[in-house]
């Protein structure tokens, strides 16, 4: 269980995240929605401790992770695996090395610097890649892959970290519709199959509605909605995105149909 209490992040005199309280149960698939600049990314980055909180508390399985340092901090980061919008792979390194970077926190440094990976780590990384049908690309440079393939490499890297929690920061914002479905289905499968909690920032309301079992809406750094996807009415969405009534009607009408057709796919995956 992930517990967030009064989490705040300040950049200069700007409040990026303000006094956020959240309790996320084990195995949940939570979508964080809101406009750009609402503080979604900062919230996720603070949970991984990539961004230092200004105040507040983060607890995971009862352990306080807000003040971890050194090796314990690195182990926590591995446990709270991040997936990024721009994949954040090292383009000039090969795919398998990128995945094996997910094992760095557990291996002795001589192995990392000589790139003499242990057989178990290698088998694990290849298995993770094979899970996404890209094991045959292991020796290719990461930047020679398509966006969808790169995001699957990034997810494989997250999985070999053996995470207890996956933090996905707009994972599909740079992908085409087909790869969007592949990546979201992969996240859903990880969530259902292995019971790993997923916290996912999303721009698209329809994707959020069809994949997540709980939605958290943010605006101006604060949580303004927290509930089941069904409870997110057009009125709430309008407030969340600060749209005119007509805009949100049009948008939701136009998008409802693909969202409904995506629903059974998400449920069976």
């Amino acid at each position: 269980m992930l517990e967030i209490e009064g989490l705040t992040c300040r950049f200069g005199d700007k409040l990026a995240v303000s006094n956020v309280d959240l309790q996320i149960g084990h195995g949940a698939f939570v979508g964080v929605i809101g406009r750009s600049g609402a503080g979604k990314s900062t919230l996720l980055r603070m949970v991984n401790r990539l961004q230092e909180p200004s105040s507040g508390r983060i607890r995971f399985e009862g352990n306080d992770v807000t003040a971890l340092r050194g090796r314990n901090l690195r182990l926590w980061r591995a446990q709270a695996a991040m997936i990024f919008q721009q994949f954040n792979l090292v383009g000039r390194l090969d795919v398998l090395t990128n995945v094996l970077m997910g094992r760095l926190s557990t291996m002795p440094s001589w192995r990392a610097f000589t790139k003499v990976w242990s057989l178990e780590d290698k088998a694990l990384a290849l298995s993770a890649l094979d899970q996404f049908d890209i094991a045959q690309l292991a020796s290719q440079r990461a930047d020679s892959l398509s966006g969808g393939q790169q995001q699957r490499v990034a997810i494989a890297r997250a999985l070999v970290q053996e995470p207890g929690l996956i933090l996905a920061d707009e994972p599909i914002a740079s992908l085409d519709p087909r790869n969007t479905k592949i990546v979201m289905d992969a996240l859903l499968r990880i969530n259902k199959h292995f019971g790993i909690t997923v916290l996912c920032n999303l721009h698209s309301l329809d994707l959020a509605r069809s994949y997540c079992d709980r939605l958290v809406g943010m605006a101006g750094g604060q949580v303004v909605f927290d509930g089941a996807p069904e409870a997110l009415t057009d009125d709430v969405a309008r407030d969340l995105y600060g749209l005119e009534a007509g805009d949100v009607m049009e948008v939701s009408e136009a998008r409802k149909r693909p969202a409904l057709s995506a629903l059974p796919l998400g449920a069976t995956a």
Partner: protein
Amino acid sequence: MSHAVVQLPPEQIAPLARLYDEAVAARRRHTYIVAAVILVGIVLSCWGGEVRPAVFAANAHRLGLYFWNILPVLRWETLGADLAEWYWNLDGWLKLLFETVVIAYLGTVFGAIGAFCLCFLASANMMRNTLVRVSARRLLEFLRTVPEIVFALLFVVAFGLGAMPGVLALAIHTMGALGKLFAEVVENIDMKPVDGATAAGASWTQTVRFAVLPQVLSNFASYGLLRFEINVREAAIMGFVGAGGIGQDLVEAIRKFYYSDVSAILLLIIATVMIIDMVTERIRHALIGMDQSR
């Protein structure tokens, strides 16, 4: 073992791992070959150029000894008088230091002006005429491959002793070095505004003025300041060949074994270079900040 990945059975892993290992082995071989070539290069260069590590090891203590020798005698009871004796020629040295900074400043400004004029002619994206571009590039190469001190020597012969030959020598080298950097900045610009200006009927110079200059100016300024830092150091040795600045007193002190003068002048030069580095770094950061806040 893992709770997040379905492990493949070993017989499925083996072919995948073999494929990967073969690909990596080829790359590792390349790395080893490069490392071997570098190692052979070190050995051959030391042997051919008579650079003997043994000589260094045998005489390293003398270097320390020299620095010990150039330290002044300072006693606590007579500190004021000792310091005054150490820096007996402070006024003269400060005058020469000022001249050094002036040489560096003029050399940088004149060099930067020349580099600015040449860089657009030397960049592949702005100059389609190969003959002009190649000539501009060769000219820049020639200007920067001849060391400053050689130019300074030639100009001292031609124009006589003083700061003028130093300024000329620095300006010429700076023109070559900055011209290449400027041209690279121009080659990395976004070409969309250039297309926009050209499509609107702008001439070549107008395109440079309105579509290229706004994109490159802050980078030019940053490189110019960096060059000024380098040129202050270069100007400090211009005096070695009589081309003005503090170098003439430094080389005299070294040659005539005026030990405490050597340390006094070296400390002054180090202090000056540090101050200039700090100031220009601050200006450069301010420029970058200004660029981003816009």
